[in-house]
C-alpha cells in the first residue's frame, strides 16, 4: 500500500533540502564573498532589519544581481522539470517518460536553433520559438499516437514521441550543419545554462512555473485514479483523455518555459520523481508535491557544482545533471525490473 498523504518526515526533509540548497547556492560561488557577510546582507534586506554587512557595492551586485536570481531560477526550473517529468510518467504510465521523450525538448531545440540562425542568440524570440516548437512537437506526437493507437494509450504515445524527437533532432542537426558559424552558440544552449541569467529570466519563468505546477498538482488525485486503470477511472466519472490532455499541456508549457530561459537541462525530470518514488512511495499525491521541492533543490545544487568544479570557469549544468542522471537512470531501470512495477 503506497502512501496517499505526504508523510510528515518526508515533507520536512524536502523543505529542509530546498531551503538548504538555496542557502548553499547563495553562499558558495567563484567570487569569494564571506558567508557571514552574505547572511548579514540578506538579513539587512528584510523589513525592519538593518545590519551593516561590510560587502562592497560590487560584491552586493554579485549577490543580488547574479547569485540570487540564479538560485531562484534554479529552484523554478528544477521544480518545473521534475513535476513535469512526474506528470508525464503518470500520464503515460511509463517510468522512463520525461519532458524529453515526447519530442518536447527536440521541438524546442529546433525552434531555438532556427531563431539563433536567422536572428541571433540574444533575441527574445529564442524563447518564443522554443515554446512553439515544443508545443508543435507534442501536438504531432499526440496526434500520431492517437491515429496509430486508436485510444491514446501510453505506449503508442511514447513511440510517436520517440519518432517525432528523432525527426526534429535530425532537422535541427541539419540546420546547424548548414550554419557552422553558430555551432557553439547552439551547442552551449543545448548543454543548458544558468550562467548568464538575471531577474529578467526569473520574471519570464515565473508565470510558466506557477501555471504548470498548479495545474499538475490540482490533477494529482485524478492521476492516481488513472493509475488504477482506464475502465475503473471511467466508472468513477473521470474522463481519461481529458485529464491526460490537460496534464500534458501543463507539463509541456512548464518545460517550454524552462527550456526557453535555461536551455536543455536533461535528466532532472527522471531523477527527481523516481528518487521520491523509491524513497517515499508511488502515489502521485505524494510524488508530485515532493518533486517540486526536490527538483528545485537538486538543480540548485547541480548549478552550484557547475559554478565551482572548475571555478572560475563554468561547467554546463546539463553536463552535471546528466553525469548524475546517467548512472541513476540505470539504477532506476534495475530497480523497476526487480520489483516488476514502475
Amino acid at each position, binding site marked *: 500500500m503506497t502512501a496517499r498523504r505526504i508523510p510528515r518526515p518526508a515533507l520536512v526533509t524536502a523543505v529542509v533540502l530546498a531551503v538548504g540548497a538555496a542557502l548553499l547556492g547563495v553562499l558558495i*560561488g*567563484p*567570487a*569569494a564573498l564571506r558567508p557571514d557577510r552574505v547572511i548579514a546582507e540578506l538579513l539587512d534586506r528584510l523589513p525592519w532589519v538593518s545590519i551593516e554587512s561590510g560587502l562592497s*557595492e*560590487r*560584491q552586493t*551586485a*554579485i549577490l543580488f*544581481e*547574479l*547569485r540570487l*536570481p540564479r538560485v531562484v531560477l534554479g529552484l523554478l526550473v528544477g521544480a518545473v522539470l521534475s513535476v513535469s517529468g512526474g506528470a508525464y510518467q503518470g500520464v503515460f504510465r511509463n517510468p522512463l517518460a520525461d519532458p524529453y521523450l515526447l519530442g518536447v525538448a527536440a521541438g524546442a531545440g529546433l525552434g531555438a536553433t532556427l531563431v539563433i540562425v536567422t536572428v*541571433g*542568440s*540574444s533575441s527574445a524570440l529564442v524563447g518564443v520559438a522554443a515554446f512553439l516548437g515544443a508545443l508543435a512537437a507534442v501536438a504531432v506526437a499526440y496526434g500520431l499516437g492517437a491515429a496509430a493507437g486508436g485510444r491514446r494509450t501510453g505506449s503508442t504515445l511514447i513511440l510517436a514521441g520517440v519518432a517525432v524527437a528523432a525527426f526534429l533532432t535530425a532537422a535541427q542537426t541539419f540546420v546547424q*550543419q548548414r550554419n*557552422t*558559424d*553558430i*555551432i*557553439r*552558440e547552439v551547442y*552551449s544552449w543545448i548543454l543548458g*545554462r544558468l*550562467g*548568464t*541569467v*538575471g*531577474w*529578467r529570466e526569473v520574471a519570464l519563468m515565473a508565470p510558466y512555473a506557477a501555471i504548470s505546477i498548479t495545474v499538475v498538482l490540482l490533477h494529482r488525485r485524478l492521476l492516481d485514479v488513472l493509475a488504477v486503470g482506464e475502465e475503473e477511472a471511467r466508472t468513477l466519472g473521470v474522463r481519461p483523455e481529458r485529464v491526460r490532455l490537460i496534464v500534458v499541456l501543463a507539463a509541456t508549457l512548464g518545460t517550454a518555459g524552462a527550456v526557453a530561459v535555461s536551455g536543455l537541462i536533461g535528466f532532472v525530470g527522471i531523477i527527481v520523481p523516481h528518487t521520491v518514488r523509491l524513497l517515499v512511495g508511488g502515489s502521485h499525491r505524494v510524488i508530485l508535491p515532493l518533486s517540486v521541492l526536490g527538483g528545485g533543490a537538486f538543480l540548485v545544487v547541480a548549478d552550484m557544482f557547475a*559554478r565551482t568544479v*572548475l*571555478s*572560475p*570557469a*563554468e561547467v*554546463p549544468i546539463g553536463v552535471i545533471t546528466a553525469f548524475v542522471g546517467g548512472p541513476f537512470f540505470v539504477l532506476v531501470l534495475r530497480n523497476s525490473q526487480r520489483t516488476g512495477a514502475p
Partner: protein
Amino acid sequence: MRRPIAVLMAAALFVAACGGGGPGATTAPPPFGFPREIAGITITEPPVRIISGSPTHTEILFAIGAGGAVVAVDAFSDYPAEADDLPHLDAFNPSVEGFAALDPDLVIVTFDPNDLVGGLGALGIPVLVLDAPATTEGVYKQMAEIGVIVGHGDGATALIDRMRSEIAEIVAGLPEAVEPLDYYHELDPTLFSIGSDTFLGSLYAMLGMASIADAAGGGYPQLSAEFVIAADPDFVFLGDSTCCAQSLETVAARPGWDSLSAVSGGRVIALDEALASRWGPRIVDLLGVIADAVYGEDR
C-alpha cells in the same frame, strides 16, 4: 559571417594545444627550391591552383604575392577584396570531392576534420595543415613555410620583416608600465574568454597585459559572470561585437555588470572580429588598435 572565425580559431587553437605542437614543431625550416615533399606527395614546381581553407591563410597568400594562384577560399575569407570574389568552400565540414573538383595542386587548411589529407592525398593533391601558432614567432615561421612552398619566399621574407619592424615600433612606443594591466576578452555573450597562453593572449602580453582568465587555467574557458565582476578587469575587449551585437551599452545592461570599473570608465572596447581571430598579416593592425585603446593614440 564574421563571428565564426573566433570559433574556428578557438577550435584550431584547441587542436593545436591537444596536438602538442605548433607549426614550428611539425616541420624544420624548409630548404628553398623544388622538388619538395608535402605530406608524402612530391611537387616539382610552385603550385598555381591553391585552395585556401582559412581566412588567415588567404590573407597570408595574398600578402606574400601568391594571390594570383588562389582559385578558391573558405566560407569566411573576406579579405582582401579580391579573395572575397573567389569561389567559397566549406572548410569547416569539407567535402573531399568538392575540393578535388576544383583541381587544386595545393590545399591549405588549419585543421583536418574530414581527412582531407588522406582523401585528397589519394588523388595526388598535397594538403598542408597549418594550425594556429602560440606566438608571433610561430606566425612568422608559418608565413616563411608557405612562402617557400608556393614559390614566394621573397614575398614572405619581406612581409615578415615589415611586420617585425612595425610591431617593434608599437611595443617601443609603450609607456613604462607602473603595474601590469588586466583585461577580459570576450569571445561570445556566454562568457567564453581567452587566457594569456593563447595566441591572442600573447599579443596582449606584448602590450603588458594579462588576462583574468588565467585564473581559470588559461586556454578558452567559459567564465562565471560573478568571477568577471569580482575580478574587475581594467579593460573589457569584445570579440563578439559583430556576431552578437555586443557593445558598451549591452554590457552595461547585463545584470551586475554596471558595477565594473571598466564599464563606468568607458573602457569597454569592441574589436573587429576578423582582426581578433586571424593570425595573418593584420595582427599588426590589431596590436595598434589595442595599444591605442589602452595607452592612448598619442602615447
